[in-house]
């Protein structure tokens, strides 16, 4: 038998699986739309650095147009118009994209890290640790996140954006943990785990070296859904007036429209942030659905029997 040069995909199976998954993903219309929209938003977020560089007038928070100090409609100078003190709405919108991505992805990432770890430990340990962790998860899942963060902000004052991110993560991990735990439970029975034990692997090593790689794709899938809920919660908080006053987010923009009474007269101010929040949620959701189809073969359309 002649030997052939080892290919990268032979050594790292996950690369091969990723490429297969990508080919499947490309076929899904939903996934493509979602991804395209996300790329648009990503460009918006990156583009948020541009306006202040053109002129200090365009800064989202402190921009002051010497000629305009009230809300005006779209014009050549301000493509989307200005808000109630003359700040450019378009630059606010772009900055909001940046905030949405940062908040969404950090909160989701944190909740995934917490949830996956707890899920794996619970599934692997079994018995009382499992029961305790799952009871806590149940309790946290029942609580309406928004209202809890509201109460906390009443006690601790105006919350910093990162505190909000951490709080969101702390309330969102149970959903992830349940799914990861179920997956871990089924993986636990597999022969390769026994093989590892026989070889003398300690518990930690088994969890992180053997179970985690198999559980990660599921974790990342759930991350997309966590991002949507994180963005929505932050937006709702900002809308109610409990966001970080130093951050311009889309929820903040809606709050300003609402509270300054411009709701009825300024559609150019009212519509864009809301459309953006809804669209970014939609696009992450679509992305998640497409990934779901890739990961779970049962969901694929071609395999549905009459």
């Amino acid at each position: 038998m002649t030997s052939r040069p080892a290919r990268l995909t032979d050594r790292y199976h996950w690369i091969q699986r990723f490429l297969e998954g990508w080919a499947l993903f490309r076929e899904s219309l939903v996934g493509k739309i979602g991804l395209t929209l996300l790329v648009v938003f990503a460009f918006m977020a990156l583009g948020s650095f541009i306006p202040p560089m053109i002129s200090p007038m365009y800064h989202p928070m402190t921009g002051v147009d010497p000629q305009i100090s009230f809300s005006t409609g779209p014009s050549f100078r301000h493509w989307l118009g200005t808000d109630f003190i003359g700040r450019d709405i378009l630059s606010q919108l772009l900055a909001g994209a940046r905030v949405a991505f940062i908040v969404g992805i950090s909160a989701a990432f944190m909740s995934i890290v917490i949830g996956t770890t707890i899920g794996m430990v619970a599934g692997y340990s079994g018995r009382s640790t499992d029961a305790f962790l799952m009871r806590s998860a149940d309790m946290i899942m029942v609580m309406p996140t928004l209202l809890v963060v509201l109460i906390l902000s009443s006690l601790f004052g105006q919350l910093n954006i990162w505190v909000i991110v951490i709080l969101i993560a702390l309330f969102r991990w149970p959903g992830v943990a349940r799914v990861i735990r179920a997956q871990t439970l089924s993986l636990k029975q597999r022969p390769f785990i026994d093989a590892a034990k026989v070889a003398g692997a300690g518990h930690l090593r088994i969890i992180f070296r053997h179970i985690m790689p198999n559980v990660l794709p599921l974790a990342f899938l759930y991350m997309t859904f966590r991002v949507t809920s994180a963005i929505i919660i932050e937006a709702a908080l900002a809308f109610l007036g409990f966001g970080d006053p130093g951050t311009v987010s889309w929820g903040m923009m809606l709050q300003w429209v609402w509270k300054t009474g411009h709701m009825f007269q300024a559609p150019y101010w009212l519509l864009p942030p809301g459309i953006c929040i809804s669209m970014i949620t939609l696009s992450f959701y679509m992305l998640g659905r497409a990934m779901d189809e890739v990961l779970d073969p049962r969901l694929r359309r071609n395999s549905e029997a009459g």
Partner: protein
Amino acid sequence: MALNRYVALRLGQIIIIFFIILTVLFVLFRIAPGDPIERMVDPTMTPEDAEILISQLGLDKPISVQYLYYLKNFFSGNMGTSFHYGRPVLKIILDRLPNTILLFTTSIMLSAFFGVFLGKIASWAKGSFKDTAMTIGALVCHTMFLPWIALLMIWFFAYKVGWFPLTGMITPEIWLDPGSGSLKKALDIIHHMILPLGTLFLIHFGSYLLIMRSSMLETLKEDYILTARAKGLEEKIIRNHHAAPNAALPVVTSIGLSLAFSINGGALTETVFTWPGLGRELVFSVSNNDYPLAQASFLLIAAVVLVANVIVDVLYAYLDPRIRY
């Protein structure tokens, strides 16, 4: 196990959870920065009144004794006096409770009913334009941002076309007039309720539609459906009487899982539409630093969520005899 035992078990569980929440709130109120006494005693009170209140709440005693005072006060219904309204907190939140429950339950029932109905239709017409349109519509509705939709509804339906009132639950003139009968008052409430209800409905029916649709597709593959067809039953009867009731079960589970989300949405809707409910009271009291009211509103909302969870779980166990713990 029997249904009764299951109910008792669930009720016991939520009582424990409620106690934990009560205790956590107690701890939080005391470790938060600032003076805890200021949180329970209105700073604008005279020193003599403040003294009386402090000894009544046991704030001058050690922490463990304070906890007992806290529990005793809570269970005897004394939750303090609102800083903002100057009235006993318990009365305020109990006044608000029916409004929230009215809006909340009606919206869930409407969304569930229509979601199931439309999801059923969508699954029949699978692959057709009608199906794709409904699915995409549901998806879009589900991901829209609730406060924004609420604002848009107000802008269009209340401001532009003036069909519905801008705010609130009642028109004072109608209610103050001794001549108006119950029907007129009820119609007035319904008139005010349509916009908030519509908003909540739009956001929630989407997910129920999608779940019902996929559940229906799964159910239609089951063996007993094949049997029914073999027996020669009419297709319509099979779908409506055999498949649909079973397919609707995951929707019930979904209602239970999304209760927290629904309560969030409820609070946001109440705030935007100025519907005098618990959610709005919570937001309002937090903005005003009205601590006793904020704490009590939160506790009552938590209790409502817990009880709603039990109701949904029991309903599901009742409907599906296979599931008992």
